[in-house]
């Protein structure tokens, strides 16, 4: 009997793992939207020092006032490199403020990265130990958040931004939030 149970064990373990996988997907329709407990909550009030000398960092007050995108990035992150041209285009073609948070990065590497690929951000804060990222609910870089005028997180995009995600989800949401503000 014990022997039989032993052979049942792999199935039981699998059932548990499969449950963990499926439950969040089935309860929240879109798995790409990693559920974030932070949605509709105020953005965490961290005071992040500036990365560049001539550009401000990200303090709690910086997240209020208008609708903006907050992008977590790092020079060591491949997908960040993939999405970077989209951020550059966004900066060039729209007046939507982009806030960068440089995540667990080396300052020099981040500076080189921005010089090499261009700097789309209006302000950049340094989150060297990843504390702020934990409070924001970042799973892994890159991640992008839509923050409204009152400083509340309204949307979370996991992974590299795509032209499609921008056009179909993020930009319409930004327009909506702007309109709501009136």
């Amino acid at each position, binding site marked *: 009997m014990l*022997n039989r149970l032993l052979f049942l064990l792999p199935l039981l373990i699998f059932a548990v793992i*499969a449950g963990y*996988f499926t439950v969040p*997907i089935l309860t929240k329709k879109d798995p790409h939207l990693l559920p974030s407990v932070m949605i509709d909550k105020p953005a965490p009030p961290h005071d992040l020092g500036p990365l560049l000398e001539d550009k401000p960092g990200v303090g709690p007050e910086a997240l209020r006032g208008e609708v903006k995108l907050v992008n977590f990035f790092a020079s060591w992150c*491949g997908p960040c490199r993939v999405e970077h041209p989209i951020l550059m285009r966004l900066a060039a073609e729209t007046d939507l403020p982009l806030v960068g948070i440089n995540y667990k990065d080396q300052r020099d590497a981040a500076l080189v990265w921005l*010089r090499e690929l261009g700097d789309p951000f209006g302000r950049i804060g340094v989150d060297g130990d990843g504390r702020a990222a934990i409070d924001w609910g970042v799973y*892994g870089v890159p991640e992008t958040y839509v923050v409204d005028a009152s400083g509340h997180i309204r949307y979370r995009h996991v992974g590299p931004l*795509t032209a499609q995600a921008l056009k179909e989800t993020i930009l319409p949401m930004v327009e909506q939030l702007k309109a709501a503000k009136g």
Partner: protein
Amino acid sequence: MIAEIGHYALVLAFFVAIAQVVVPLYGAARRDTALMGFAAPAASAQFLCIAIAFGALMHAYITSDFSVANVAQNSHSLKPLLYKISGVWGNHEGSMVFWVLILALFGFAVAAFGRQLPDSLKARVISIQGLIGLAFLAFILLTSNPFERLDPAPLDGRDLNPLLQDPGLAFHPPMLYIGYVGFSLAFSFAMAALIEGRVDPAWARWVRPWTLAAWTFLTAGITLGSWWAYYELGWGGWWFWDPVENASFMPWLAGTALLHSAIVVEKRDALKAWTILLAIITFSLSLMGTFLVRSGILTSVHAFAVDPERGLFILGILIVAVGGSLTLFAVRAPALKAGGLFAPVSREGGLVLNNLILSVATVTVFIGTLYPLFLDAMTGDKVSVGAPFFNATFVPVMIPLLVLLAIGPLLPWKRGNLRAAVEKLWVSALFTVVVAGGILVLEKGAPLAPVLGFGFAAWVAGGVVTELTERIRLFRIPLGDSLRRLFNLPGAAYGMSLAHLGMAVFICGATGEMNWTRELVATARAGDTLTLGQYELVLEKVERSQGPNYFRDMATLNVSKDGVPYATLHPERRLYPVQQMPTTEAAIRSGISGDLYVAIGEGSDLGGYIVRVWVKPLVPWIWAGAMMMVLGGLFSLSDRRLRIGAPKRSRRRPAAPAVTEAGD
């Protein structure tokens, strides 16, 4: 027209698959030879249909037929031919067709070469193989049709992601897929054995070469991917513990365990249930590799299909496949007859320990990759797990494996003497101490990591050499006889030694790269000199020119080493206008002692260019070690004992010894 033929062939393949699943399985249950005989032609027809579909898709890519949506989205008329071809599998839909093509190829291989297999086993294996195919064909036809048309057709395509336009990545996915999908055969054999209720050495003799082939391709595929990341991503790393890398690494670890446990089934008729379980787990992890990359749950550089509907479909396939096979395992495996007994200290014992350690390592990587998801599902907490986690957990887990790697092969089957084995290793122990001590002195005792790394590498290499000298009885019989023994060793023996030695070489490379890399970042103008260690680099010029589908800035750097001219390097920075994406093409000068790696960035406003220089010691050893493992796999595959297959228990066999006795 040709695209429609391709689509039609896929639909046909789907219906052939249904017949391939049902008829042989029913035939095997009824012991009906005619129905079982249906398996082989069905598998051939299945392969033919999918090959036609794949050919049609490739035709669309080569002729740049942009009326096919898939081609328009992923190709461009100006793209070099190689990347038009690799574009076929460089996107989600095409890669799935490639996936089922390989799957059908393996099914076809069983049909074509499986003549000595018992009829019922063969029928069941092909049927299970067909079942996997059926699921994925349904997936392709319902959610990812590669032959969808666009009307009107665009004038030109959207081009392939430039990061993927690279020879390393042209061949990385096919290798990886052959590896992933190759484990399907081990899975089908495991399922068939559970249905039959019988596992014997003949079964293992069949499973092992296919597992070995899959493992060899997977090793090559992972290495190519890592090499690509190293030179293309332009920041000089070669392994990032990225979720997608881990997704291919987990089946590799489990597959390595399977490879070793199948030996025990073959030679000693033991560990049967465990080997079956490993076969299931290995293929499940391969499927999960597909799932992770495609569901959008985890994102990474090469996750090209981010689509929840597809993710759910694959999740469904995964749950049915894994859940179903584990249920069958729970019901049927306890009935498998236990085979040969062995003492804890024995070759079998060593291989069991090997399996345990590799399983723990797999679990470690599994947890590191998925723990953030679990935690999120459980508590909503978010954590990120990165390289520090894996360095702190995976590396220590692997250390006992390295210790064992030298000892295990010296233990005899059934019952061994640990002391005798360890005594044989005194030369290697001495070698290890000398190497570790040497590093300690050279490094002035600073960090312990390189001392340990090179020490273990020396221990493993010493163990391999000891095992080889034992085998050929070097210095105990005349040298000529020893050499003759060396040349007459079976391929599998060479394979083992090469693969194990490759491990030692790989450890040296990884240790050197991780501990001794030096880096320099500077802004340089033409004529400036940069110095890093013994290298002096002069930036001669940066020129702008045009490639087939990109613009490039190419730098020319004259490098001297210790004052002597050493190399001229041409790092590039490219811009692909269609996708508006820059890429870096690093210039690398490799030598046996390491790489000099130079990448160039954008010109700054002040008129200079950002130049990054790395001295990366022993990096070529990483690739060399991995290639030795691949070669080891190939040598082992060439072993004629595998080709001949298991001595089939011929019914006339009892008569044979009688004849020889009479002859004596």
